[in-house]
């Protein structure tokens, strides 16, 4: 399929009112969060390797820079958002019992929020300490 065809079919499908379901929003958010993860990981992985594997003091010093705190906030928010969207699709594809499906999706969302908030609080606490 060339680019024109792909774009045509996507806009066409998007504009059909009957398929303007939450699914389209989910699809877009999954891609937006994926694109967001690219620069965040290109920043975080080298930081982890070069600044965070040393001593406790070095790691704390790295966390206390406002630039790094901001980056960690964006990283954790994007990461758990991306993960919960992805896990939701996997559950929707493989869990066929309706009740179990909804329960597991809710559980995934709650766990993502819990882990996200927990990590943000820790990042903030180190920054303020």
């Amino acid at each position, binding site marked *: *399929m*060339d*680019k*024109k*065809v*792909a*774009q045509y079919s996507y806009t066409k499908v998007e504009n059909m009112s009957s398929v303007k379901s939450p699914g389209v929003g989910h699809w877009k958010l999954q*891609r937006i969060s*994926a*694109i967001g*993860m*690219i620069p965040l*990981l290109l920043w975080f*992985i080298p930081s982890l*390797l*070069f600044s965070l*594997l040393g001593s*406790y003091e070095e*790691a*704390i010093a790295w*966390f206390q820079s406002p630039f790094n705190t901001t980056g960690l906030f964006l990283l954790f928010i994007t*990461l*758990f958002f991306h*993960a919960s969207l*992805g*896990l939701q699709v*996997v559950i929707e594809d493989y869990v*066929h019992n309706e009740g179990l499906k909804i329960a597991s999706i809710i559980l995934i969302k709650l766990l993502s929020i819990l*882990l996200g908030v*927990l*990590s943000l609080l*820790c*990042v903030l*606490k*180190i920054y303020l300490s």
Partner: protein
Amino acid sequence: MSRQRPLSPHLQIYKPQLTSILSILHRATGVALSIGSIILVSWVIALTLGEATYLSYLKIINNWFGKLILFGFTFGLFYHFSNGIRHLFWDAGYGYDLKQAYMSGTLVIIASLTLTIITWLLVFFI
């Protein structure tokens, strides 16, 4: 609606190919990384709780089993990262040609293995 209907893809008669294996591996690494994110969060929690907790946390991780898990995590991360970019190209409408799909797939394997090896060389030699 019958719940017993056969579901596509019919894996019992489906011939595994590079493209299909990479596709399922994208999901598998995605799920594994989601679970593995707990390691990242617990590392940040340990750092927050002070030096003593942080050092004992590192002690728990720093053995052959912990390193094996982290090695798998690293490969999963680089694989999902590279193949995710491949998916974004598809979403933008590029690379659907069969030859291109195989080429980008091979590139993803080479990239994720290389990045994993470089990372662990850095871990051991820095």
